[in-house]
């Protein structure tokens, strides 16, 4: 990381340390802390060029912020707004960019409805598992060929097991405005962004586990001194480091699919081990371990399960 990137990471990390209260955030009407979101947009982590009122951050900066959000599980519209912004930038419609991107840069929540398999999709029907779909003010959708702005449509929050990620069902009613072309690469952009977040979650789950096993004493010594536990944490470390490499190297369709499969599976394993290594305390509501486990499962399913992408990869690789 460059010094600027390190500074950005530190800024986001300290913002989240000071202000992020995950459990309070999920109790708010829209499931995220507006104050934290405002501060985050002030830092300028959305990948929006200056000409459209953004900070000029690149994807790398956005990924740094997503990784930090992943670490703390802080609910945030960053992923949704990022995808909406990316889809707009790729649409080739300057007018729409000039009209919508400055609002997104200022913190207006935007989201994108799109077919994860990049196949054809109907804009007349029900879209499920839309990130921040119940409260986003800017709603974009793709039918697999074009990008559209959605005027209205009934929407409801869809409560899922993972309360740290806001999902909604949106009823599309065929009233939309065509904005421009849909770029299939948005899928790879989305998978890369999600992978960055997953790496943060996995890294933090491991850190918390290491900290816990250093302090929890049984049989007269810290449980982290038992080889059985050490070796499992060593394996978690191998997973986190290789997942970080996979997430950091998304440059095309194949590497993005690799990142999605690899990071999802790594996070599943790390979160499951976090629970196992914490023992009984992990099963309590007060402890955060279950939040990590639930996040691992929900982000594994988001944008298509590892199985879906494995299937795709089995056709892509030579």
């Amino acid at each position, binding site marked *: 990381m460059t010094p600027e990137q390190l500074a950005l990471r530190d800024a986001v990390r300290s913002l989240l340390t000071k202000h992020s209260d995950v459990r309070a955030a999920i109790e708010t009407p829209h499931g995220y802390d507006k104050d934290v979101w405002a501060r985050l947009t002030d830092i300028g982590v959305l990948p929006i060029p200056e000409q459209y009122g953004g900070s000029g951050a690149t994807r790398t900066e956005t990924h740094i912020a997503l990784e930090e959000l992943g670490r703390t599980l802080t609910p945030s519209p960053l992923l949704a707004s990022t995808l909406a912004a990316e889809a707009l930038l790729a649409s080739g419609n300057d007018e729409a960019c000039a009209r919508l991107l400055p609002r997104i840069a200022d913190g207006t929540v935007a989201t994108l409805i799109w077919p994860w398999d990049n196949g054809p999709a109907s804009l007349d029907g029900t879209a499920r598992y839309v990130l921040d779909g119940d409260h986003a003010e800017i709603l974009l959708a793709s039918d697999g060929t074009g990008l559209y702005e959605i005027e209205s449509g009934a929407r409801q929050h869809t409560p899922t097991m993972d309360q740290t990620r806001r999902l909604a069902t949106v009823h599309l009613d065929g009233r939309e405005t065509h904005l421009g072309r849909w770029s299939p690469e948005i899928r790879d952009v989305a998978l890369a962004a999600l992978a960055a977040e997953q790496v943060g979650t996995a890294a933090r789950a491991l850190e918390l586990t290491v900290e816990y096993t250093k302090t929890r004493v049984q049989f007269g010594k810290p449980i982290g001194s*038992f*080889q*059985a536990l050490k*070796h499992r944490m060593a394996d978690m470390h191998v997973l986190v480091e290789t997942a970080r490499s996979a997430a950091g190297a998304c440059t095309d369709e194949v590497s993005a699919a690799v990142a999605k499969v690899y990071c999802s599976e790594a996070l599943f394993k790390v979160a499951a081990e976090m629970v196992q290594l914490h023992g009984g305390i992990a099963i309590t509501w007060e402890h955060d371990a279950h939040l990590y486990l639930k996040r691992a499962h929900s982000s594994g399913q988001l944008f298509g399960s590892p199985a879906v992408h494995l299937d795709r990869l089995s056709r892509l690789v030579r």
Partner: protein
Amino acid sequence: MMFTLSSEQTDFAAVLHDFLRAGKTDLASLGVDEVTDPVDLVVVFEEVGHHAVAGPLIESLAVVPALMGGVAAGAAAGATHSVAFPPLVPHAVEADRYFLIDGDTLHEATPTAELESVDPSRRLVDLSPGPIVATDVPAARAFDLGVLTCSAQLLGLGRAMLELTTTHAKTRAQFGKPIGQFQAVKHHLANVLIGLELARPLVFGAAVTMNSRDVSAAKVATSDAAWQAARIALQVHGAIGYTAEHELGRFLLQTRALRTAWGSPSMHRARVLEAL
């Protein structure tokens, strides 16, 4: 309900164990060639595996007798038999006399080419069919007996490797203590024990029911458990286990060969699923 071996069966296993440990090979002298009951066959083949006995025993003692209704037609005493069931068992283990199954028809067969197994002590041949020996033979049951005895052999192999490795872990010292005192080694061995313990009842259960679902389940479980035992055995032995001088190699290579012999784990998984 009595899901446990009779005292005759455990005694027989002990006799076989001592016999094989003494390096004797003439199993017929113990009457093993007259064993036909599947549970008894499992008892025999677990010991065969336990001592990594090589050769076409599954074929000679379990499969061919089942195909020929017990009479080893015209075979000289002590002659070994082998059989292929293409496509599931495409090659035969080297023997004195060969057969080939086509549907429910049993052919004499002649070897055409030698093939290399991952286990060099298992010599394999390709067969070409000769004259018909019998029609309407119980091919399906004979195949299942092959799978079952192969599973029993894997179980015995796994047990032997666990024993070898446990002994090694108690005697080999590094960092001033027996390596068996390190949790990593302990847990490796405990995992092997768990795998074998849970595979074992599946083998005996299959011997009782003799339906293909249960036989396949036993093969899947023993293939995985015995191969896990082999991997851990090598890992815990370290470099010495990687030498031809050490006996582990024989067990390890035979286990790897039997893991995919008589149908691969994925073929047997598919068979279980189909039956459900």
